[in-house]
């Protein structure tokens, strides 16, 4: 199959997949029964309750309720967020940018350190450096994010006093123009060095907490695929022509080892998206993850449904992009299998 056909086929399945996801999300919101409990109060009479049910269409059959909901979603109406006391669509952009800024930083940390560590360990197979890489990467998969974040807080916030909480110092940010909503980018556009330092110092701890498990996953894959590449004939050929080991790795082995690592980088987006929930709760970050935990504790279904739907759209899109990139990079992949 040609790559173009493959991409088109994947793009065509996307709407069906999202349709399935929307049914699942709607289904989840109804497993606890009718959501009418949020809208009624104890002193209401049966007639009043029936009126409320009729107003929100909750007296209709389930498929009608689903159609009403999905119709709203497609027109950009994600419902009323009880925790924010505002329409979900109105709150979403600012919170999503806050989360995306954090996620991008976490991804940079995870990818840079993961590839670096994996290469370092893989090139020194069965030496102490390699064992350390393995231990770090296995513990990364086992580390509870919420605990890791709290431990970092205890050390860097409580004892060393070097890390701040929240997203930014409001005193610094009040005077800035907000072009993008990404605080680091805004600080640069405002040519304000102090604001940039402030934004980055707020980002470091949550980004490390969030990126750690993804880093472990990437390091592990990078290590094993580098070990595999180092056994190939072309590596011996490069050595035979007198290339120093450092260049053999950098120019030859690492490039090929990066190809399978790509898929894992895509997968690790799932980790990052999941991480937002806990990390934003611990570091008091005003993104969609914190919004979700607030909604969960107050039973705010509109916000929960919106969050799950948005997250899964991001997740599916990134995975599609990674699959396509992988197909371009490695022509041996059998497409459509």
């Amino acid at each position, binding site marked *: 199959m040609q790559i173009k056909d493959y991409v088109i086929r994947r793009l065509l399945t996307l709407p*069906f*997949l*999202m349709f*399935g*996801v929307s*049914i*699942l*999300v709607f289904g*989840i*919101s109804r*497993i*606890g029964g009718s959501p009418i409990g949020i809208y009624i109060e104890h002193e209401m009479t049966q007639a009043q309750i029936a009126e409320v049910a009729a107003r929100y269409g909750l007296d209709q059959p389930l498929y009608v309720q689903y159609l009403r909901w999905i119709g709203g979603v497609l027109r950009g109406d994600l419902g009323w967020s009880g925790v924010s006391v505002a329409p979900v669509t109105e709150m979403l952009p600012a919170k999503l940018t806050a989360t995306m800024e954090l996620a991008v930083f976490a991804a940079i940390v995870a990818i840079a350190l993961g590839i670096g560590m994996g290469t370092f360990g893989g090139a020194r197979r069965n030496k102490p450096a390699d064992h350390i890489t*393995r231990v770090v990467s*296995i*513990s990364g*998969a*086992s*580390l*509870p*994010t*919420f*605990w890791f974040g*709290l*431990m970092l*807080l*205890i050390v860097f916030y*409580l004892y060393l006093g070097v890390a701040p909480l929240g997203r930014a110092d409001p005193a610094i940010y009040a005077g800035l123009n907000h072009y993008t909503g990404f605080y680091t980018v805004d600080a640069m556009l405002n040519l304000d060095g102090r604001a940039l330092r402030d934004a980055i110092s707020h980002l470091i701890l949550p980004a490390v907490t969030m990126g750690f498990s993804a880093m472990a996953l990437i390091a592990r894959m990078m290590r*094993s695929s580098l*070990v595999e590449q180092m056994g190939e004939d072309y590596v011996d050929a490069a050595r035979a022509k007198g290339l120093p080991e450092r260049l053999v790795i950098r120019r030859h082995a690492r490039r090929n080892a990066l190809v399978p690592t790509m898929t894992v980088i895509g997968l690790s987006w*799932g*980790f990052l*998206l*999941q991480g937002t*929930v*806990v990390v934003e*709760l*611990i570091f008091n970050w005003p993104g969609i993850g914190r919004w*979700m*935990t607030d*909604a*969960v*504790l107050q*039973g705010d*279904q509109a916000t*929960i*449904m919106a*969050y*799950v739907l948005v*997250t*899964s759209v991001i*997740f*599916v899109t990134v995975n599609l992009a990674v699959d396509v990139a992988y197909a371009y990079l490695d022509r041996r992949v059998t497409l459509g299998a």
Partner: protein
Amino acid sequence: MAESTVRPAPPGLPAVPLEALRTRGLRFAELARSALRNPTTLLGLAILTVIFAMAIFAPLLVPVNPSGALQMPRNWGATNAPPGTPGHPLGTTPNGGDVLYGIVWGARTSLRLSLTVVSITVVVGVAMGSLAGFLGGKWDELLMRLVDVFLSIPELIFALAIAAVLGPSFGNIILALAAVFWVKYARIIRGQIMQVKQNEFVDAAYVVGESRWNVYRKDVLPNSITPVVVQATLDMGHVVLIGATLSFIGLAEAGLAEWGNLVSEGQSGIAAGRWWVATFSGLMVFLWSLSFNLVGDGLRDVLDPRTEGR
């Protein structure tokens, strides 16, 4: 996989009863020996032995709380006691809960959580995946689309949404995790069965007149199951990790002797320098999950020769 398969009798030789050709279980001792040669697997097993012993002998280590074994006892006379306080060697929570009690009895909670979720998901996943892989056609198409949809939502977020809608309780955490985790098994076993059923020994079994059900039960399933065993081992750790995250967020009953719950109870005291509650109980989640990961990795190395040396 290939090495555990059974070859049919070569032509011209007397027919051997199929039972005699099956090698199921014979390699167990050999496998166990090679698994135990790996130091990291041994480390994992050692940690697991300690935690399991803690769960089993919990009543001997810390006296059971009369108002419910998995309920944190409250000593309102000693709230926020630091580690080393007489009667509370690991300190107490802001609500006067003994941290040691939570650690020891929390091992039972984790064992109950992981065993329940893993056994439900393995049974459901293997059944669904077998239907798809063995029968193929319409069933397969339907199940795989369902699997695609389920895998489109990151698992923690999926479980969080379900548990949130059902309401905060430990039972609902179990339900939510079960609803999310079965998909992996369905996918694994389906892929395995698709491969295994193309082997000659499966045709051979049909030729000697075995029924479809018997071929599945005696030939296809046993030869497809090893990756499920590995995944189930890894999930024993993963389920507790995600479950603890859910109860940390606040989806378990308050006062349940569960590690994530304890971390959440200790979180508020951290700003005031009371580090012990969150540190000790979170460490238990880490050790639990780490040990199952180490053992699962070791198992994968011996059961799946393709990944050897990675």
